[in-house]
C-alpha cells in the first residue's frame, strides 16, 4: 500500500508493514528529549515507574537552554536537578553552558537527530527535526518520562496534509519563515491540528537546510503533530561530518493519500509579518509597515541559525540601530556564534549597536534576557506572539523573518528591507 513519509517512519518504528491514519500504534524511539523547564517534571514522573535506568543513555538528550544561564535561584535548582540526573544516568547528550545551545539548533548540528528517526521531545518545537526527514513531535513531561523508561511511545497515526510550493523565484529576502507564516495565515493556528504537515515541491528543494528547519519548527503553530520534508542532497550535505550512525531516508509514495493538498507559487508570497496575538494574524510587510517598535529580537530555535545571522548582517552592515530601539541577537549554538564571529557578523552587529547574547531561549518565551514592559512592542524572529509571550500581558509581539527584523531595527518601525538597502 502506498504511504506518506510520516506513515512510513511510523510503520518502520512500530514493526508493521503499513499503518493508516487513525491507527493507534506503539513505536520505538530513537531519541527522547527534555529541557530545563520540562525535564524536572519528567524526571519526577520517571522515578515513579519503578525502573532505575533510562532505556538507553545514548538515546536521551537533556538540554538546559530555557532559563540558562540560570536567571534566578529557582531556575538554578531546576537546572541542577536535571544536571544531577544526567550525571547519575550517564546521559550521553547533555551539555553545560559554554557548550550548550538552543535545543532545536543544537541537536541537528551535533548529528543527534537524523533522517528516518522517531523522536519525541518535551518541547513543542521538537517538530523542527522533520526538516531532516525524521518524525519528530512535541509531548509533555509525563509522555517524555514514559519514553525515558521504556524507549517506546503510543501514537495515533496522523492524517497528512501536503503543502506544495511551485517555482523557485522567491521575492527578495523571502525565506522559510515567510512560507510557513503564509501557510499559518491561510489555515489558522488549528488548521493542521493532529495532522502531519508535509512540505514539498521545487520551492522547498530550493530552500536551504536552515530555511527548512524554520518551516518544520513552526508546524506546531498550525496545530500540526509534525512537520516533515524528505531528505535530499542538501540534507546529505548538511549531515556530512555530523552524522555518526547510519540512517534511513524515507520519501512519500507518488500515490500516497492526503487529507488535503494545498499548492502555492513561491513568487506570489511576499515577506510576512504576524500581528499580535496569534501567528495566524499574518499580513504582508507592506501592510504592517510603520508600526513603531521598542525591541527587536533575532534568534531562537526558529531563526537563530547562521543563514539568519548572515541575512541580518547583510542589512545591518555599516548601519546603526534606531536610537529608540533595542536589538537583541541570539545565535542558536556556540558553533553558530563562533561561525558568525569568524565571518565578521558579530562586528557588524556590535558596530550597529546590537546586543549579542550567548545562546538561550530567554526572551522568546518571556523567560529572561529581554522581557517587555507594559505597552512595549517587539518584532521578533521567534515563533509565538501570544498575550504576554515576551513579558507584560499588555505588551505586543510581532513575528517576521530576519530580513524584516533587521531592517525594522534600523528604521525603528516595521519596514520592508528595501526601505533600508534599496532593492537588494
Amino acid at each position, binding site marked *: 500500500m502506498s504511504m506518506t513519509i510520516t506513515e512510513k517512519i511510523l510503520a518502520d518504528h512500530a514493526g508493521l508493514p503499513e499503518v493508516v491514519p487513525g491507527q493507534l500504534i506503539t513505536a520505538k524511539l530513537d531519541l527522547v528529549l527534555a529541557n530545563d523547564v520540562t525535564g524536572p517534571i519528567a524526571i519526577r514522573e520517571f522515578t515513579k515507574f519503578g525502573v532505575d535506568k533510562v532505556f538507553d543513555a545514548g538515546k536521551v538528550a537533556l538540554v538546559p537552554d530555557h532559563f540558562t544561564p540560570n536567571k534566578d535561584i529557582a531556575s538554578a535548582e*531546576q537546572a541542577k536537578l536535571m544536571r544531577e540526573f544526567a550525571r547519575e544516568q550517564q546521559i550521553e547528550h547533555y551539555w553545560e553552558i559554554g557548550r550548550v545551545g538552543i535545543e532545536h539548533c543544537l541537536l541537528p548540528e551535533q548529528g543527534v537527530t537524523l533522517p528516518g528517526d522517531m523522536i519525541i521531545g518535551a518541547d513543542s518545537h521538537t517538530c523542527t527535526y522533520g526538516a531532516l526527514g525524521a518524525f519528530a513531535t512535541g*509531548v509533555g513531561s*509525563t509522555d517524555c*518520562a*514514559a519514553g525515558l523508561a521504556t524507549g517506546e511511545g503510543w501514537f495515533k497515526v496522523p492524517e497528512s496534509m501536503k503543502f506544495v510550493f511551485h517555482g523557485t523565484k522567491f521575492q527578495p529576502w523571502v525565506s522559510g519563515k515567510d512560507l510557513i507564516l503564509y501557510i499559518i495565515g491561510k489555515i489558522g493556528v488549528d488548521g493542521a491540528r493532529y495532522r502531519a504537515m508535509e512540505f514539498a515541491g521545487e520551492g522547498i528543494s530550493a530552500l536551504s537546510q536552515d530555511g527548512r528547519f524554520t518551516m518544520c519548527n513552526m508546524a506546531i503553530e498550525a496545530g500540526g503533530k509534525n512537520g516533515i520534508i524528505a531528505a535530499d542532497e542538501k540534507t546529505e550535505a548538511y549531515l556530512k561530518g555530523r552524522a555518526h550512525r547510519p540512517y534511513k531516508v524515507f520519501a512519500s509514495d507518488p500515490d500516497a493519500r492526503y487529507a488535503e493538498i494545498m499548492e502555492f507559487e513561491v513568487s506570489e508570497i511576499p515577506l510576512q509579518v504576524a500581528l499580535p496575538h496569534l501567528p495566524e494574524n499574518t499580513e504582508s510587510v507592506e501592510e504592517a509597515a510603520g508600526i513603531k517598535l521598542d525591541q527587536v529580537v533575532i534568534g531562537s530555535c526558529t531563526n537563530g541559525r547562521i543563514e539568519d545571522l548572515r541575512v541580518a548582517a547583510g542589512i545591518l552592515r555599516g548601519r546603526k540601530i534606531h536610537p529608540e530601539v533595542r536589538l537583541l541577537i541570539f545565535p542558536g549554538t556556540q558553533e553558530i556564534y563562533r561561525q558568525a564571529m569568524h565571518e565578521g557578523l558579530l562586528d557588524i552587529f556590535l558596530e550597529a549597536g546590537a546586543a549579542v547574547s550567548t545562546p538561550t531561549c530567554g526572551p522568546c518565551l518571556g523567560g529572561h534576557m529581554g522581557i517587555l514592559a507594559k505597552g512595549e512592542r517587539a518584532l521578533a524572529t521567534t515563533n509565538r506572539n*501570544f*498575550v504576554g509571550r515576551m513579558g507584560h500581558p499588555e505588551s505586543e509581539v510581532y513575528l517576521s523573518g530576519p530580513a524584516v527584523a533587521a531592517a525594522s531595527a534600523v528604521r525603528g518601525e516595521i519596514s520592508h528591507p528595501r526601505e533600508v538597502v534599496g532593492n537588494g
Partner: protein
Amino acid sequence: MGKAWKFGHDIDTDVIIPARYLNRSEPEYLAAHCMEDADAGFAPGVKSGDVIVGGKNFGCGSSREHAPLAIKASGVKAVVAESFARIFYRNALNIGLPILECPEAAAGIEAGDEVEVEPASGKITNVTRKTSFQAMPFPVFMQELMAAGGLVPYVRGRLKNA
C-alpha cells in the same frame, strides 16, 4: 457541581500558565498563577469543583505540562471545550485532568452557570439553564489509560507484566 469559568478560542498554554512562573514546577505554586493573563480574577476566585469552558483549540502552543497541572491543582474538576490542541489533550489525560470535547456544551454554557460534569460518561449538565450535553467518547485505549489512573500507573503496570 461547580461554577463555569468561560474563555474564548485558542487559549494557549502561555496564558494558562505564563513562562515567568516556569522556573518552578510545584502544582500549588502554578495554580496560584493559573489563567492570570486571561482573567486575573480566576486564580483567587476559583473553587474546588468548578469547570473551565473553552472554545476551539484549547491549550494550543507550548508543550508545558505545567498548564494542565496548574488547572488541576486550582481545583477545576474538568475542562470542556469545542476542541483541544493535541499536546494539551495528551498531557491532561496523562496527569488525570478530565477534559471533554463538546462543541454544543461549549456554546451552551455561560460564565457563572452552575455545571455538573461526569467525566466517565461524558455527560455535562448545565444546572442553571436546565440543559444537558453528551461529550465525544474517548477511544478505547484512552479509556484504559484513564481507568489505570493516568500514564504513569498504566506504563508501570505494563513494565511489571513485561
